[in-house]
């Protein structure tokens, strides 16, 4: 029998006194897609960084084709045929797509940058991935999903025998995800091995040939997707099945009350281009309204417009509990009783360098201020209670919020808006990039708000999540609402078809 | 938004870099007069005198321009065109070239430094424009006349004056200008020559970079280190004034003699009148003499190649009658 493509034995790694990996054994065969599941903090990122040559002070051995290897740096690993596609985008926002694709090793002719060759090569690569994009556009102008595709394309530009993908689909829609799976299948045929990390169980079921679950720095289960069903995997990860949430949702299904939010004539245009086109939305007390739509359909922009978060180009006629609300600025919307959880906690949701308690208190300073003077003691006491009640996991809430895992960061975002006591909460991808355990907690929070009689407007690219939580789903396409589903007739297939149909 | 930022940056750059040039031509409508005068005519009614000043930010140089202006007031046939190089040699160079382009009749220049300006001035001289150089010398001999004072002589005179005043003994503090500059070196070396042989103790010496606040700080240190100070010699009057303020704040100004150099009417002479400085030694601007040289050249008189200005000393006794010449 030939040696496996990659074989990790007894990998140990500690940060300070804190062991993160406690003897990981993992193998990857040629032509295999090996899915790795695990909660945040289970050690996935550390394992990837060791494999990709970013962390070098570990113990244990890595064998490639049976040969013991130790890479000194990421560039070394790439030369050895190991490509890691990170979840955190490594693209430089101000550079163009081409420049990003060839960052670090541009094509040259007689020592000079060969722009033409690079553009031709870039066009070829992007065509292979079916990415339709202006090669010279700065990356920051592209939608998040396109950026993620460019990131993947950048990684696969190199000839790779081992490809590690960390949450590659977190920003992708269904179609783009399927396209990525096509690429993965091609890699398989070429004999590469793919280590695939994802929170999305249905993806694992679809493409993995083998599944391993990492918990607390150890592999706790390995098997075929048939043996390790999503529920089994989730159980291995946290021991708490999603079933409970499902039961709760069903119990709470029909508690919808009077109309809270009534918005008409919602419009938004960016640089003269209509993004949201005269749509109306109603949210009732205790109701979760789902907004479905592909990237670019305008769903996020609806939330931003309602919240007055667009600097210009947005307008709407809105009443909240019957009172007119001027959607001119976040400050006004907040005062009126709205809250917006944005889809990117790192750039728009949190002040990363500030402490957990500061972040939680940010929209509610006025509550603790008299003539601008803060009662910091009372504020911090309230934040302590708030963060505990949201189960934010940290020994000390005065630590920087950036020290938290993604799921806990998201809980801080929810907590900070909860504390403003809003009537209607606008949620844009509230569970993006977080583990199952945190997801369950966020679902439970949404249900709690629902029970408290708040209105919720929810966007999620995870169609199952959307269907699970929403009482009603409005499907958007090109800035318009094209279909509506009630809880009873919404299925993953029907909603998905509506988002892509002409 | 990015575009507007960029545009403003560009505008600003033009403003900061370019205002020296543009303001000078606006200030002086007479700047174009030189072109109007018939070329080569010996019976001219007006003569355009280009004045290139290296840095109007310094009060001394503002005074020089004022002296030039005052001296030219009684001679309506002279039209002075001032330009300020804002302490930038290259800017001054292009100003000299502008004057040559405008075909001025005379050029008075107070150069920032010798090396970068010798050649442009030589070109003006070669083009037939008589050149009077004030204060700082240029290299070679391609100019009509150099008028300047001798910092070393002035420093020496200050030293001798102090020896006489203190009967040859005492504790002295020397507050120096930037020692990388020639005037500071000369004022230092001259002073040391002047006090040679006297029983003076230099109890503290350091650089105050010509700046009054710095002089006050350095004097604080001198006061901390030296229990007894009899006199403070500063390389300029603001430096002496700063030293006085420090001593006064420490209640140690009584019985200390403060002397400085430059004697500008607004600064040094004022401090002497107020009784703050015991003496101020003039560093003459040469403005009056510069205009006189131009008038002599017009009248066809022979001029010296180099003229060393006589300095004056101002003391409380003589300041009202305009000081006494140094021997």
């Amino acid at each position: 029998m030939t040696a496996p493509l990659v074989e990790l034995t007894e990998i140990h790694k500690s940060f300070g006194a804190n062991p993160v990996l406690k003897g990981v054994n993992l193998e990857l065969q040629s032509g295999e897609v090996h899915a790795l599941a695990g909660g945040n903090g289970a050690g996935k990122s550390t394992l990837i960084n060791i494999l990709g040559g970013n962390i070098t002070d570990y113990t244990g051995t890595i064998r490639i084709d049976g040969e013991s290897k130790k890479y000194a740096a990421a560039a070394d690993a790439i030369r050895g045929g190991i490509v890691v596609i990170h979840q955190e985008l490594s693209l430089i926002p101000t550079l163009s797509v081409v420049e990003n694709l060839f960052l670090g090793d541009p094509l040259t002719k007689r020592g000079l940058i060969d722009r033409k060759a690079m553009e031709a090569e870039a066009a070829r690569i992007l065509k292979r991935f079916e990415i339709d994009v202006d090669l010279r556009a700065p990356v920051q102008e592209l939608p998040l999903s396109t950026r993620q595709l460019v990131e993947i394309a950048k990684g696969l530009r190199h000839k790779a025998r081992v490809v590690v993908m960390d949450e590659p689909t977190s920003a992708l829609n269904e179609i783009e995800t399927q396209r990525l799976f096509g690429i993965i299948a091609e890699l398989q045929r070429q004999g590469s091995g793919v280590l695939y990390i994802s929170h999305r169980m249905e993806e694992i079921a679809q493409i993995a040939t083998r599944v391993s679950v990492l918990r607390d720095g150890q592999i706790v289960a390995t098997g075929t997707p048939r043996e390790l069903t999503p529920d089994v995997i989730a159980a291995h990860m946290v021991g708490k099945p999603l079933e409970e949430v499902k039961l709760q949702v069903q119990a709470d299904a029909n508690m919808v009350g009077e109309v809270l939010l009534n918005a008409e004539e919602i419009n938004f245009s960016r640089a003269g281009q209509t993004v949201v086109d005269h749509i109306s939305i109603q949210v009732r007390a205790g109701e979760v309204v789902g907004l479905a739509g592909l990237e670019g359909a305008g769903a996020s922009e609806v939330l931003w417009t309602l919240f007055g978060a667009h600097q210009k180009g947005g307008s709407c006629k809105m009443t909240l509990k019957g009172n007119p609300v001027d959607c001119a600025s976040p400050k006004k919307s907040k005062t009126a009783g709205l809250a917006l959880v944005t889809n990117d906690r790192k750039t728009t949701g949190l002040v990363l360098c500030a402490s957990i308690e500061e972040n939680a208190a940010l929209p509610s300073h006025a509550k603790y201020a008299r003539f601008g003077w803060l009662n910091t003691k009372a504020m911090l006491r309230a934040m302590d209670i708030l963060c505990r009640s949201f189960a934010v996991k940290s020994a000390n809430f005065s630590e920087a919020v950036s020290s938290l895992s993604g799921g806990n960061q998201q809980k801080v975002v929810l907590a900070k808006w909860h504390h403003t006591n809003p009537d209607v909460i606008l949620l844009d991808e509230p569970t993006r990039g977080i583990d199952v355990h945190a997801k369950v907690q966020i679902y439970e929070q949404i249900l709690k708000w629902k029970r408290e009689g708040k209105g919720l407007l929810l966007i999620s690219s995870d169609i199952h999540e959307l269907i699970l939580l929403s009482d009603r789903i409005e499907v958007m396409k090109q800035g318009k609402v094209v279909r509506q589903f009630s809880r009873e007739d919404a299925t993953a297939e029907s909603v998905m078809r509506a988002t892509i149909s002409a | 938004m990015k575009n507007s930022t960029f545009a403003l940056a560009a505008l600003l750059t033009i403003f900061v870099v370019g205002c020296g040039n543009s303001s000078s031509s606006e200030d002086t409508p007479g700047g174009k007069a030189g072109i109007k005068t018939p070329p080569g005519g010996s019976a001219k009614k007006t003569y355009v005198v280009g004045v290139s000043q290296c840095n109007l930010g310094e009060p001394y140089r503002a005074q020089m321009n004022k002296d030039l202006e005052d001296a030219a007031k009684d001679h309506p046939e002279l039209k002075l065109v001032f330009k300020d190089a804002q302490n930038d040699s290259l800017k001054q160079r292009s100003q000299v070239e502008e004057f040559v382009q405008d075909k001025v009749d005379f050029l008075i220049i107070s150069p920032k430094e010798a090396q970068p300006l010798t050649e442009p001035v030589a070109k003006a001289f070669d083009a037939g424009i008589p050149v009077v150089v004030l204060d700082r010398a240029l290299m070679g001999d391609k100019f009509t006349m150099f008028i300047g004072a001798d910092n070393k002589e002035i420093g020496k005179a200050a030293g001798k004056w102090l020896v006489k005043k203190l009967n040859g003994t005492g504790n002295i503090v020397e507050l120096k200008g930037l020692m990388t500059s020639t005037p500071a070196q000369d004022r230092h070396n001259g002073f040391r020559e002047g006090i040679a042989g006297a029983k003076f103790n230099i109890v503290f010496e350091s650089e105050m970079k010509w700046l009054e606040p710095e002089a006050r700080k350095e004097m604080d240190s001198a006061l901390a280190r030296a229990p007894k100070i009899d006199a403070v010699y500063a390389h300029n009057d603001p430096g002496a004034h700063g030293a006085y303020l420090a001593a006064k704040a420490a209640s140690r100004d009584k019985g200390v003699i403060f002397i400085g150099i430059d004697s500008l009417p607004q600064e040094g002479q004022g401090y002497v009148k107020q009784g703050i400085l015991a003496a101020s030694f003039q560093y003459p601007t040469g403005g009056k003499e510069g205009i006189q040289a131009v008038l002599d050249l017009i009248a066809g008189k022979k001029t010296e190649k180099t003229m060393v200005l006589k300095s004056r000393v101002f003391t409380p006794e003589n300041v009202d009658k305009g000081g006494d010449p140094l021997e």
Partner: protein
Amino acid sequence: MSALAKLRPTLKTAEFRAIMAFAIVLGLGFIFSGDGSFFRLGTHRDALRQVSVYGILACGMSVVVISGGIDLAVGSILALVAVALSKLVIHLHFSPLLGVLIAIAIGGIAGLLSGTLVAFGKLQAFIATLAVMVFSRGIAKFVSGGQKVATNITAPDGTSTFVEVPGLFRAIDNKILGDNVSVVTIIFVVCFLITWLLLSRTKWGREVYAIGGNEEAARLSGIAVKRSKLLAYVLSGMFAAVAGICQAAQEQQGDPEAGMGYELTAIAMVVMGGTSLLGGRGSVGLTMIGILTIGYLEKILSINAVPESGRLVITGAIIVIAVFAQNRR
């Protein structure tokens, strides 16, 4: 080993590192004491007085830097205020209180101009305050006619008269508590305390941190970002005015050339303390350590009469070492 392990978190804090830099400088003072003058009380009183003007500027600068900006205009505003105040109280015989109020208002207006350009005009702080820096210096030279505004008043006919140094100047350039503390040092400490209270105890102060950390997240949290940023520059301008008042009082005149390059010293003090130029992090307490470090370094170099060339080299080296240590997290 265990003691060291316990110390490790402390060793990593910005406060500890800033204090270490200060301790090193003090250590230099013990070694190079300038014939023992370092051990005299008066030397420390003077060191604290000399650093006060810079310190006041650095307090305002801290707020602007924490908000994610920078204020290059403070040195020029200082000169403008020094000239205007001297004109008012020496030449025009304004009452001290009115003079000071007008002076602070001038600083506030200059800050308002910077702040408006940054917050509402959306200019980069560097460029906006550079413009205000040039502009203020121009006004200072215009108002003063390029001459120092002093007690020596020259009439148009060339005769000069002298007036008394105003009581306001004498009062500010005074020492109290048995000649042990300078009044300007008291003013500096008051400015520091005001800044500290504003930053740590007010709604606005916390908002300034949030804006510097992530302006977009702050805006989406319903914070009046523009107003808060504007106020940071107004405060910095007003502190520059206070510094200008102290400068004029100590020089007994208004010098239009005063404060040249002071903005850079103030920025160096802020950075030396460990406040990040990226914004959102740091504190005015850290800046205080930076102020003392640079102030004492200058004093120690001065009592040892180190030549200018040596001073520049040593100061540069200390800044690099301190900032290098700060960045090693």
